[in-house]
């Protein structure tokens, strides 16, 4: 977890498609980080308003929760780009290189299928909430399509990043995924 992301980028990372996807994911990462910082600020504001001013705190917990959910979903592609999603690499490391690439491609493909599922049904949920104007059951009454939008958007960009990673593996462009410099 301390290895810096820069050494994960092989020469293949210069391919334009890969670079475009990387840029998109990085943008998501910035937004996610900004949302986490915003949650810190809002929570501190809430504690101040409640315990020092003794006023009502109506919207803060809800806002923070939705910010955290959105930060997580938008963070998925960014963390994928940094190879930050933890995995058990024993078997891939033990395999000869040819099989290793096949196995990595296969696991990426399986991930793509399940993320596509999440994207499809996540969009569906967003659409229902939007068309029926669902709100959260609180005084603040957030229109739920706003936080729900994090699902289609986050999973879509995560899907793109996974597809690009699969492409990089198949085209032999990803040095990191060949695990040469892994641990």
């Amino acid at each position: 977890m301390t290895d810096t992301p820069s050494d994960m980028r092989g020469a293949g990372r210069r391919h334009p498609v890969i670079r475009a996807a990387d840029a998109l994911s990085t943008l998501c990462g910035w937004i996610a980080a900004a949302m986490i910082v915003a949650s810190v600020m809002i929570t501190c504001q809430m504690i101040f308003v409640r315990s020092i001013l003794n006023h009502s705190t109506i919207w803060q917990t809800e806002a923070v929760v939705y910010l955290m959910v959105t930060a997580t979903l938008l963070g998925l592609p960014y963390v994928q780009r940094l190879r930050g999603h933890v995995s058990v690499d024993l078997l891939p490391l033990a395999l000869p290189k040819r099989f290793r690439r096949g196995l990595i491609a296969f696991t990426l493909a399986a991930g793509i299928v399940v993320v596509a599922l999440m994207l499809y049904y996540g969009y569906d949920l967003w659409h229902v909430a939007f068309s029926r104007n669902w709100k959260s059951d609180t005084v603040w009454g957030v229109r739920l399509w706003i936080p729900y939008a994090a699902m289609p958007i986050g999973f879509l960009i995560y899907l793109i990043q996974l597809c690009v990673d699969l492409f990089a593996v198949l085209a032999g462009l990803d040095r990191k995924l060949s695990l040469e410099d892994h641990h």
Partner: protein
Amino acid sequence: TELRLSHQWSTSDVRHKVAQIVADEVAAADVDLTIKIFPSKSLFKPREQYKPLSRGQLDMTVFPLSYAGGQRPEFNLTLMPGLVKNHDHAARLNDSPFMGELEKLMAEDDVRVVVHGYLAGGFVGKDKCITKPEDVAGLQTRAAGKAFEQMLAAAGASIASMASSEIYNAMQTGVLQAANTSSSSFVSYRIYEQVKCYTPAADVALWFMYQPLLMNKTAYEELNDAQRAAIDAGAAKAQAYYLEEAKKQDAASVEVFKKAGVEIANMTQDEFNAWREIAKKSSYKNFVENVPDGQKLLDMALSVE
């Protein structure tokens, strides 16, 4: 056929027993139908049950209907301060045209009511008794339900929103000075260890919440006649039990609080009226403004004697 029933309470809770009665009756009828109960939110989070129910991914649930108030704002009337006066009044409300209107709305979501039922609740204060509106002024308060938050805020309380599971700790450390929720929640979260005074639901009570046993309408209609009859028979028995137990809950909670050395305060009719005046200017007003036909529904509910 197997039906899946989900709810959020432990197996010792009255609402579990209501579900269990229906399940047992159906099993005893021997009509090739079983109801599998998933208690203690082991399947869905409490507020997440209505959507799967209406989409047929869940067959039955015991569910506080106001949780779905974000999807059907009309349902907010099922947790409105001062609308229900006592348990017998609640029972009459269940047979009224008002409930008929709500059932029509549920039918639009492919949901039908199997067992009607209301549960009551009260107030606790960390340092003092809460009976009249002036008592909550300036207190950090956690209320159950949006309409109550609006009423309490109008009475001068500061509203703190947090999960009911955090009430105990928040009271203990002093983050929270007052709370309002159901009698059974007060007991199950052992709030009596942290408060000075309890205002239970007695002759008059502000807090009544409609918590029926619901079923997916299509799933019900797809059953054969014998199976439907078994459910209906179980439901009738369960509903009678629910009403009896609902009354006992309040008295039982008082016993628990008394035993823990907590002072018991009672709300007078005048204090109840004062609360309701505030509610009319805050939560009722807000409801009518935000719900088309809201005034009509509210009047229907208020017209029940």
